[in-house]
């Protein structure tokens, strides 16, 4: 009989926020050589004080400012020069400045992905690279997905298939585009009745599939020790319902967003293999999600393992 407005908010597409811009992510145009390993840790702090209920942007004083902090260890390894494996396991903490609902924290989703380079050829004054990426992620703790906006993630398995193309000039500038299809499974609520344009008599909620696209323009500087990049990211769920008026979000919602990001990564000259990275991003349109702005800071260390 929870009659009070349960405080609204936003669905955090976990990977949407946590898809790191760090080196060797499933999304970028970089590869590790065979036997190379990169270990990274990225801290991210993202916030919103408005969210999209459907496409209507609203504030809710019972949430106030919503905050999501995460720390994500990640390992990238070169199985061969052309195939890399990437694993990550974020720890996430959510809270709100308004209202009386408790935030949560814990381990989110374990993600494993394989990235293969399919094309690497000289073209004019630069080279053209094409990559494909197959990823799988699964909840790594018993967090409750049906506790939005505080949930750590959407609580479902996700299988992703991506294509990435990059054209890079010898002088350093590059242009990259990627497109992905993300197939999500179902998540289990702790109630066996919910409403999604109809009454559903089950614990199981269908998390909508999504497509994800990104365009990035960047360049290398300082003899390839500094990389700077600006990107535009769009996510669209293939199905799902809207948050009902002044109601809580739920994992079945159709989550969309468009986001701009600035990113930089620097490899130290004196300490071999050590790098730092930082980024800032901001969502400028969306649906059924909080209008996040956030920054991330990370350390990367790269070495030859075999």
């Amino acid at each position, binding site marked *: 009989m929870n*009659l009070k407005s349960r405080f609204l908010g936003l669905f955090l597409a976990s990977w949407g926020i946590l898809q790191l811009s760090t080196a060797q992510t499933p999304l970028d145009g970089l590869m590790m050589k065979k036997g190379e390993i990169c270990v990274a840790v990225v801290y991210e702090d993202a916030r919103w004080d408005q969210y999209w209920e459907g496409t209507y942007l609203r504030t809710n004083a019972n949430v106030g400012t919503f905050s999501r902090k995460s720390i994500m260890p990640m390992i990238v390894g070169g199985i061969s020069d052309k195939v890399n494996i990437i694993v990550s396991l974020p720890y996430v903490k959510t809270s709100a400045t308004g209202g009386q609902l408790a935030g949560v924290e814990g381990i989110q989703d374990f993600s494993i992905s394989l990235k293969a380079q399919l094309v690497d050829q000289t073209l004019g004054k630069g080279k053209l690279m094409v990559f494909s990426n197959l990823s799988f992620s699964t909840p790594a703790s018993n967090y409750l997905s049906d506790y939005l906006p505080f949930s750590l993630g959407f609580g479902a398995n996700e299988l992703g298939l991506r294509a990435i193309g990059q054209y890079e000039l010898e002088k350093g500038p590059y242009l990259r585009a990627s497109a992905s299809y993300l197939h999500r499974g179902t998540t289990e609520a702790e109630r066996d009745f919910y409403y999604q344009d109809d*009454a559903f008599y089950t614990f199981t909620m269908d998390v909508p599939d999504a497509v994800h696209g990104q365009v990035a323009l960047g360049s290398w500087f300082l003899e390839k020790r500094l990389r700077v990049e600006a990107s535009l990211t769009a996510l669209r769920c293939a199905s799902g319902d809207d948050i009902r008026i002044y109601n809580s979000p739920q994992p079945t919602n159709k989550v969309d967003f468009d986001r701009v990001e600035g990113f930089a990564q620097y490899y130290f000259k004196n300490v071999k293999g050590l790098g730092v990275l930082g980024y800032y991003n901001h969502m400028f349109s969306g649906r059924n999600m909080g209008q996040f702005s956030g920054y991330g800071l990370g350390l990367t260390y790269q070495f030859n393992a075999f």
Partner: protein
Amino acid sequence: MKNQLRYILAVITLGTLSYSCMEDLPTEYEFTGYEFVELDVDAGEWNLVLFTNNEQVAIPQPAAVGSPALNQELADAKSKIQNASAAQKEAVEYWTNNPLLRWNEIALELATKYNLIPAPNPDGTYPAPDPTKPDQYPLFPYSHPPYTSRMLAYLSVAQYDGLIMAWHYKEKYGRPAPYELDAQIKSAYSENGLKSYPSDGAVVAITSRDILTAMFPLEKEYLAKMAEEHLESLVIAGINVSSDVEAGKLIGTEVSKKALARAATDGMRNAQTNKVKSDSIKNAAIARFGWYWENQETPQRPVGLTPLFGRVKMWNVPTVEEVRPGPPPAPGSPQFNEDAEELKRYAKNMTAKERSIANFWNDGLNTYTPPGHWNRFAKETVVKYRLSPVRTARIFAYMNMAIVDAGISCWDAKYYYHYPRPIQTIPGFKTILGTPNFPAYTSGHSTFSSAAAEVLSHFFPLEATQFRKWAEEAAMSRIYGGIHYRFDAEVGLEQGKAVGAYSVAKAKLDQVD
């Protein structure tokens, strides 16, 4: 390269496995027509709720077996059965021979759809639903637990009185069903020999349509469409001819009118008060007890939910005062402190089991509410015991009268004692469930659930242990969720039990359970 392929295959396999078990998710209870454990042929003599006499609604004497009029109807029925479309055959399967269960499900779906709390205006004030302009935001109704409990009571009582009359006439006129009169007609359901005049299905279709249309005016067209489909299915199923259906419609229409006349004057229209009245209720509590409840949202809701629901006319309890519990422990008293400490402990160290209980019973906004949850249990138990339509209606009527009486009694206590919620009394307290917009003492979940469990235990004694366990779990769920003190829950359970006993006592007068 072989190794790499193996890695890729492993990922694909893992992914495929996790998706291969996807299926269509159920939007209704999956059951089909079934053979009734008994036909309850004497049900026409059971006590009515709204009426005093089982012939208070008159229907015409039916055409005799063998008469040209009835033969023509049988011929028409056969033609309809032969020409039935796939959709019509599907409808026969959907409605079943106990269609009250489907209408109850539709009622729960609408309760869920309309269970949204009004959002604040940009200036920080709050709008309220207006029954005279139902389509203006916030839509009418806001089907919160009091609203839903009352809606279900009217629905179930109308269905029950209508079916008692139908059973009376079925025995009185004794007209055999079409499948008994014509060898070419087969019943889509078990051929149980139930007399067909008047159609019990039509009684259920019309009472349900009319009560629900009054309760959810924006759903008028949807309900009319569902009723049409249901009425049509009765002839196509081979269990009724058109005069059976017409007579059932007559009963349904008159019974609904009587039920809605009661609803118009039961006090519900005054339940949601203005701020002046609401403040006077609060000030009376301050004068009596020295404490008061206040909404903790931002912007603050100026009036709690239905402060005068406790004055709504009860069904089976003579006066609300006779089931009003004694006062709760004062904030700051040793017993209060003990129960507040318990809440802090749960908030700090919640087990997975406690969390899932809190969420399972939450039944908050955008759900069918606790009254709906108990209607669902009743539905599933009715099917398990293969009860006849009239016996089914009996259980829903006595249970839903007890549930709304429990709600009225609970709301009386809530606004009489006006007791603050944990988020108001415990500084910095955070919860995993949203705190509702009304005072704490006593717990609605506990009171509703205990009353429902009491009635269901009477009708299904073999299931009593399970029902009472569920009620206790529903009560505990609010403590785990941080929105009720233990004394709210425990006193609520007692209160619900006391209210439920009135409904059981009335049911016992029939001596048929």
